[in-house]
């Protein structure tokens, strides 16, 4: 800027386009920011790497293969990949993206785009990790269908629809984690809130799998967690999780919606806030119902056929 330069104020700016398209425009910008977020880049690279490695390893075509020492490998573990990489990585990345956008402070607050529109754009950006997980999930599921695994104890127990629901649970984890990251950033401004939430989710998921029996309480403990394994293989003991996977899918959809509503409710006022609270109550109620149906319907959990505790025949 030189003192001699003439200001170019004569240029007539184009009129603003109004409220329409604001969310779309902001979503594009937030997607761009997410795609450049280092944590997200690493998470996607790790996800792609582990997914590819999983496809080419020697157990690729076996959902349950007895290994040395009596352990097993299971393709039903697949949802852990998007959940861990894209869900948790996306949580931290979107948490940072959200907090970064808030740094502009009063500049953002004095703009006509509302807090709801800004939060909605951030929530829509969370569809990116979910989309990546969905692509991988479709590939994995197609592979299962085209090239059925051998020794399919679990395949005998799960229908194609249930298997699709299991795959989609991993996709929902890749959506719910980032949505939770936005909500946490909106409501808790302290620097490590995103990381602490991620650790909390891991602990919740791990602790939910500690108990393994065939009771309703066991299924409740497992399925309450946002992410839980469908098949376990630890210390020579294999275990297939019971419950209704269609309803669990609905339960996870409910959790994702609750996270999005929580994110959008921050900074909302008046009628919009009342609408969001009503929506949260309705979705919350339906989510609890879906959890109850997940636990009370479907198959019970069981050990693998090579385990002395095997109960299904």
């Amino acid at each position, binding site marked *: *800027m*030189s*003192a001699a*330069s*003439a*200001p*170019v*104020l004569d*240029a*007539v*700016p*184009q009129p*603003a*386009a*109004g*409220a*329409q*398209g*604001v969310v*779309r*425009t*902001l979503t594009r*910008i937030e997607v761009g*920011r997410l795609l*450049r*977020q280092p944590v997200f880049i690493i998470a996607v690279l790790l996800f792609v790497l582990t997914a590819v490695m999983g496809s080419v390893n020697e157990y690729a075509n076996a959902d349950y293969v007895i290994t040395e020492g009596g352990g097993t490998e299971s393709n039903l573990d697949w949802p852990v990949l998007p959940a861990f990489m894209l869900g948790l990585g996306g949580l931290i990345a979107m948490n*940072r993206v959200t907090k*970064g*956008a808030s*740094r*502009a*402070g*009063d*500049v*953002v*607050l*004095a*703009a*006509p*785009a*509302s807090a709801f529109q*800004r939060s909605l754009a951030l929530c829509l950006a969370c569809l990116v990790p979910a989309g990546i997980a969905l692509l991988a999930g479709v590939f994995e599921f197609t592979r299962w269908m085209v090239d059925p695994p051998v020794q399919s104890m679990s395949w005998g127990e799960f229908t194609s629809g249930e298997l699709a629901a299991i795959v989609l649970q991993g996709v929902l984890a890749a959506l719910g984690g980032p949505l939770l990251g936005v909500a946490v950033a909106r409501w808790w401004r302290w620097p490590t809130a995103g990381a602490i939430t991620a650790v909390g989710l891991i602990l919740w998921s791990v602790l939910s799998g500690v108990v393994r029996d065939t009771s309703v309480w066991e299924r409740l403990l497992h399925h309450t967690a946002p992410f839980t394994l469908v098949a376990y293989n630890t210390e020579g003991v294999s275990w297939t999780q019971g419950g209704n996977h269609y309803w669990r899918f609905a339960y996870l959809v409910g959790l994702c919606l609750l996270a999005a509503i929580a994110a959008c409710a921050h900074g909302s*006022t*008046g009628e919009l806030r009342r609408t969001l609270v009503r929506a949260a109550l309705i979705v919350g109620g339906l989510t609890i119902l879906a959890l109850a149906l997940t636990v009370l319907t479907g198959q019970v959990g069981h050990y693998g056929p090579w385990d002395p505790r095997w109960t299904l025949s």
Partner: protein
Amino acid sequence: MSTTVTFTGVTRRHGKGIALDRVDVALEPGVTGLLGPNGAGKTTLLRLLATVLPPTEGRCRILGLDPDSSDDRIEIRRRLGYLPQEVGYPRGFTAFEFVDYVAALKEWSDRPGRHAEVRRVLDLVGMADLAGKKMRRLSGGQRRRVALAQSLIGSPELLILDEPTNGLDPEQRASLRGVLSSAGQRSTILLATHQTEDVAALCERVIVLDSGRIRYDGSVRDLVAQAAGRVWLADVESPNALSSWRTGTGRFRHVAMDAPQGVELAEPTLEDAYLLLRGGERDSVDMEVA
């Protein structure tokens, strides 16, 4: 001339403290300066104008609209530009991306039009050449100019600037004055600053705020005129002066409510008048308030 802003009996409390106390202000097109010591309530007044804060009491009309109404508030925001005292920047943004982001928040949804507008305002503040540079790599003055650029998006009818010349070198400040004086021909600009020379150079009118109350609201010329005969040069320091300092010539410049007889009077500046106004308040001496 149409009134852009009317504040009537506006009070803003922060906890038990009062940041603004029954303030009455009317702003019209042109550049109005806002002076006051730290903690005077300048930033609170600007935040109220920018609809970032609601008043605790009193009535506000901005651009003919009521900021208490949600729809009106959004409409006001469409038509104002705001440069806060401190602006944070999302990590990883370039100067262009930051201004583009704010333009999107200001509902510039059409991409080519938005980008053209972003280039225009960056050019206005002389940052066009550095548009692709990351914000974190820019100097403090350059960041300030980028922050100023975002406030100019859409040539707003009401421009609220909180210390816009902070961190700018003299050449940049001179250029900024050119931008603001041109903008002031069609917009209402409120310029809060500690730089009295910026107010003297740009503003016809000045408001002096202290302890949440307006101490002076009138023309710059009248305020400076009140300091006439109260600024003088002498070879020795005067203990009774409100303010005195040794100038580059080695002589002392004094500012006081009453100049001694027979001293060499100096041409007063806005800064002298401001110091007198502040000193007058401290000494409970009534100065004429326009």
